[in-house]
């Protein structure tokens, strides 16, 4: 194993290395087999094991949130509200939103892949604060326990947005427990972000300068800034909602002169940037994957890195576009509209640069690349429809319709989950030391893409035609499109179940993976699969740029 990345080892484009020879090598100590037993997992401070704990947690919550999506789509097969009552339906979409946003999308890539990969990518032995890292997982699980308590004790019906005064005064459901669940899990997000920031600042390997960092690390740095600056605001916001319900604080109560719209400002100050917590890490994954499977350095590396920071910064200044019809002043609306258009620029920069990377690259279409290409297409659609919504006039027409639902699912499901699945496949050999079945994985990726579009594209049309969101019944003329959407959802569900099955299968029966099955660049591929607990046998030293896939060509340009 080499501990130094040097020029000359980039081969021609190659598919994954075929399975290892029949006779297995003698078992080698790695982070997975170094200790056994429940205690060795629940008390671990190894970032790689904690990442797997998170993987278990977010996978559970993903399928739980998915179950609510199934019920929602089942209800919407027919125009009449025949499967569930409207009160139940309100609880279904609320639980779907709370679980998917706070317990799956926000922790998914950072807490699983980021946790596992950031120390490996920067040549460190662990995150800066390993015990804090473990604590963050326990905090996440406590928050999840609150949410599951809400679930079994009757649910909550405010929508994941907890809008006042409904949440503070009128709702008769478990708002307090649900709010506390989100409040608590927020601290796990804060601690993860804090850990990443300190680790990236202080623990990079010798020679690993800021502009040699993989773009995955840049993306997580930007994400961590949002986690650290935004999450405390949602924490205090939900705390005031809880206090208002329990102690009648009254700061959102119109009867006392309180302003419910203040809640919306505070809520979206976090919850809009939270969208970038979901999408930025996925963008980081796509940068890694596109570079590897085009065998090229990312086009405009520095600009792509800076665009992550730009998204994080501008993302904090656009929250008002959620409130164009909430009685916000027209002038505020104008400014927020303009700033929302502005955030499209760094996003577009990324899309153009990934596309330019493909140009004249030697592109291969393995599973991670299928997800990455899917991401680029779906994110572009989601982003462009975001511009429709950022336009003051048009937004009035489509506010609170399925157009909005389709838009943010293109970003969160088409973007963030495609990125997550692509990343899970790309680094699966590193995480488990096993190769997944490539054929099945490609089939699943295509199913996910097709199922996704069939589910959510009809919703754009539904919304534009005027179907409002959050109703369990609808006029008959919308039925065809709704049936298409529900049919797509069942295909999408199959696409999500497949990886669950073959990835678990591969952990035991998959062929053993070499240290670097994709012939990829990056320090994480320079150590064994799976890595040892200390990550590297010797301290790696970095002597070249990131993504030096074609060093001789780079040299010629320079």
């Amino acid at each position, binding site marked *: 194993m080499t501990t130094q990345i040097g020029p000359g080892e980039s081969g021609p484009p190659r598919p994954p290395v075929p399975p290892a020879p029949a006779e297995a090598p003698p078992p080698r100590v790695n982070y997975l087999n170094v200790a056994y037993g429940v205690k060795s997992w629940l008390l671990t401070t190894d970032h790689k094991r904690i990442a797997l704990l998170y993987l278990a947690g977010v996978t559970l919550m993903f399928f739980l949130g998915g179950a609510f999506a199934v019920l929602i789509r089942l209800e919407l097969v027919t125009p009449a509200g025949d499967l569930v009552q409207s009160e139940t339906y309100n609880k279904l979409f609320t639980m779907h939103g709370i679980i998917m946003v706070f317990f799956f999308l926000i922790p998914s890539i950072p807490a699983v892949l980021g946790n596992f990969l950031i120390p490996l990518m920067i040549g460190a032995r662990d995150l800066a604060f390993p015990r804090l890292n473990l604590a963050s997982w326990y905090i996440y699980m406590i928050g999840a326990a609150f949410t599951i308590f809400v679930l079994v004790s009757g649910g909550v019906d405010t929508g994941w947005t907890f809008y006042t005064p409904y949440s503070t005064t009128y709702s008769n459901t478990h708002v307090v427990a649900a709010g506390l669940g989100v409040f608590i899990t927020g601290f796990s997000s804060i601690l993860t972000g804090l850990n990443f920031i300190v680790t990236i600042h202080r623990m990079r390997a010798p020679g690993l300068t800021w502009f040699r960092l993989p773009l995955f690390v840049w993306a997580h740095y930007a994400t961590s800034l949002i986690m650290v600056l935004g999450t405390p605001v949602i924490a205090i916001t939900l705390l005031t909602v809880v206090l208002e319900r329990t102690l009648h604080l009254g700061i959102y109560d119109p009867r006392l002169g309180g302003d419910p719209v*203040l809640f919306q400002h505070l809520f979206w100050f976090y919850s809009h940037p939270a969208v970038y917590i979901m999408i930025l890490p996925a963008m980081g994954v796509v940068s890694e994957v596109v570079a590897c499977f085009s065998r090229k350095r990312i086009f405009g590396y520095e600009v792509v890195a800076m665009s992550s920071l730009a998204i994080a910064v501008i993302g904090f200044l656009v929250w008002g576009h959620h409130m164009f019809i909430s009685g916000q002043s027209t002038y505020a609306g104008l400014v927020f509209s303009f700033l929302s258009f502005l955030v499209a620029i760094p996003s577009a920069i990324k899309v153009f640069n990934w596309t330019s990377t493909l140009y004249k690259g030697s592109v291969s279409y393995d599973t991670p690349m299928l997800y990455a290409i899917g991401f680029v297409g779906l994110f572009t659609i989601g982003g462009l429809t975001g511009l429709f919504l950022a336009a003051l006039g048009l937004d009035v027409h489509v506010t609170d319709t399925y157009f909005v639902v389709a838009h943010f699912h293109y970003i969160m499901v088409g973007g963030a989950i495609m990125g997550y699945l692509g990343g899970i496949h790309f680094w699966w050999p590193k995480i488990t030391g096993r190769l997944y079945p490539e054929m099945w994985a490609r089939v699943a990726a295509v199913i996910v893409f097709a199922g996704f579009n069939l589910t959510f594209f009809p919703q754009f049309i539904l919304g534009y035609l005027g179907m409002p969101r959050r109703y369990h019944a609808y006029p008959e003329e919308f039925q065809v499109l709704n049936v298409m959407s529900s049919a797509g959802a069942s295909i999408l569900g199959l696409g999500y179940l497949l990886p669950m099955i073959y990835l678990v299968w591969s952990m035991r029966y998959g062929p053993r993976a070499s240290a670097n099955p994709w012939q990829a660049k990056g320090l994480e591929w320079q150590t064994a699969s799976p890595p040892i607990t200390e990550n590297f046998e010797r301290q790696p030293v970095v002597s070249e740029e990131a993504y030096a896939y074609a060093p001789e060509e780079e040299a010629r340009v320079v």
Partner: protein
Amino acid sequence: MSSVADAHGRDADRHHPDLVHHFESLPAQKEAATFGMWVFLVTEVMFFGGLFLAYTIYRNLYFHAFVQSSRHLNLTLGAVNTAVLICSSLTMAMGVHSSALGRRRATVAWLLLTVALGSVFLGIKAVEYKDKFDHHLVPGERFQAEELHLEGEESRPAQIFYALYFAMTGLHATHMVIGIPIILFIAWMAHRGRFSPEYHTPVELTGLYWHFVDIIWIFLFPLLYLIGRHH
């Protein structure tokens, strides 16, 4: 990053019991820990920020009600508490200084003095809270604004002032209630001789936290007690 000089220091530090495995040297470990604490304090600023925002907005909307409500707060007790808290920051700073010099007994003494001053602050705060309960100035069903000389429409936003008063000072007090056991624990560790001039990061970090809590009060005191009185 790591230089030859570091490599020398690293070998010497390798045997230090307080150096955790994933850091190269004690100074590197300390810098990371201190940096992490500062990032945490940034999150705390944002946490309190939501309430400060609400205060600013409602003070502008309901200026008269806020001025009248503010007059009912006990300026003397508030001022005494401010002095007590500033003194506790001084004793905390002395504690950190002593631990950096390796003076064990002085460290313990300064830290215990800090705890004592913090407890005095909380005691005075409790007296103030009780007064508000006695005068029905706690938000809720039994809130009464007569004593604030506010009538009709104007009396209602007074509840918002007191809601913010209790939320902001309550959150601040919660931070102190969390801080005091931490300082006691650090004092106990100091007593056991766990710190040295080379390694006393926990004392420093606790100090940073305590100063932060102090600074929050430095903002709360004028906003809640002082700036309304001149009108």
